[in-house]
């Protein structure tokens, strides 16, 4: 397809390189941290200060590994829809008897369109509003610092 010649995906070389480098670093830090922890526990009875230092280094090493994994494994915003599709509502109003009706948006609807006949009187309903349906999940409390 034309798309490939036009854009062409970036070569995957770097990603493999970078993730391999990351992996090697993680493994090295892991081994060193393990060794450090081991030494720490071994020397605990003899020299407590040295032991604490070893244990601290080991713990920090594991913390670093956790951080690296967390950063690499972050799903970023990939979970979002690439091209979002939302539900749209159309509000119809009868200027004669003020009847209001809300229905799904249909292609061809537009605001102020003289739409279908009123179901209550002989008037014609006019589209007064077209808007996105509220997402109940997304409705979080907004904390304004006023």
């Amino acid at each position, binding site marked *: 397809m034309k798309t490939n010649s036009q854009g062409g995906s970036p070569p995957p070389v770097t*990603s493999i390189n970078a993730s391999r480098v990351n992996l090697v670093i993680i493994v090295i830090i892991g081994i060193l941290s393990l060794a450090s922890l081991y030494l720490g526990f071994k020397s605990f009875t003899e020299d407590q200060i040295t032991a604490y230092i070893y244990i601290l280094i080991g713990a920090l090493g594991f913390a670093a590994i956790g951080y690296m994994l967390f950063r690499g494994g972050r799903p970023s915003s990939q979970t979002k829809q690439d*091209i979002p599709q939302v539900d749209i509502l159309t509000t119809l109003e009868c200027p004669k008897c003020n009847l209001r009706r809300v229905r799904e948006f249909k292609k061809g609807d537009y605001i102020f369109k003289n739409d279908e006949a009123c179901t209550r009187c002989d008037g014609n309903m006019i589209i007064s509003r077209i808007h*996105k349906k509220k997402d109940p999940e997304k409705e979080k409390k907004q904390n304004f610092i006023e």
Partner: protein
Amino acid sequence: MSILIGQILQQETDFNVIIQTLFSLAFIIYLVYAQKLQSLQMLNQIEATLRRLKKIRDEARGVTLNTINEVGKPGVDVSNKVDRILEFISIPLTDMDPYGIVDKLDQYLKVNHNIFEAEVKAIAPNASEIERQNLENLVGLTFELNYIYKAMRHNYLMGKKTMNIYIILQVHMILPLIMQLVESLTVGIQATREGIPIGDSVGPIVAGRLMKDYPKRDISKEMVSAEVPFDGRTLIVMKAKGPGGTVGTPDEAIINILNEKEGKVKIIIMIDAAGKMEGEPVGAVSEGVGAAIGGTGKEKFKIEEIATKFKIPVHAIAIKQGQEHVMAPLVEELAEGAEKAGESVKRIIMDYSGPGDTVIVAGIGNTIGVGQ
């Protein structure tokens, strides 16, 4: 027990030295290669974003092609033609000598628009006027997404080629902003495809509500106006001609009306969508003075020029929204904001004009999905 531990520790001394040497080595290596590692990590993140960008661009192109085939019924494969439009270049004006730049910009924008219009007409010969205008918006969105993708790819490859941390850093720094921009564009795809009013349509909604029961006439390209009696005053209400997706030519419309009335207009009220600051509520209405119109600044210049010539005060009403709302299907808060802005218009007319006066009310913005 203690003897056993002592024995182990004795053996451990060598091991100890090895571990310490390893640690020191790791530290030195990290000192030397820290930048390189950071660069690689940043490049990795840029690449992930780039992949997503490419996917979005491809999907947008697919949607555009489908819509063209659906409404335009070209009867032949138009993908080549669409790709040609997506690669369209428009060379910016030189502003070395800025004298007369606004008129040059005016001409330049018109040529751009006309060519774009003709190209879209050629690929969608059977689309109605409204469908064609919406299609122009859709192709425009895809064009922008394609451009952003290409620019980001360029920066990524430059960073990779040079492995210079400062080049990579600059790209990495703007990634969140780029993705924000891209997301504010992608939400417009559904709206332009189906003809749904967007956040930018609030200005035309306010104007449309005022003029909907009165006879309309065309006053300039893709602009309509209506004379509306209001409490002894005459309102000349104008908006882009809907419900196709167009912003019309509000500057020319105001100039035409003012020339027609020989400047005998008390005030001009302009209603437009305006960017909100983070923390401000969506759909808040602000009143003020000045020509409320965005874009290239050409329209703003022309309106300010003619208002100054006839010494007419320009009032502004802004309906606040975030960047993510401008091209997205209208949210309920903005629909309510448009109603509130209508009240503001009436209040300004009552406060700043008397019976017998003529007032221009201009609803600025893209009128997609908004009739009159």
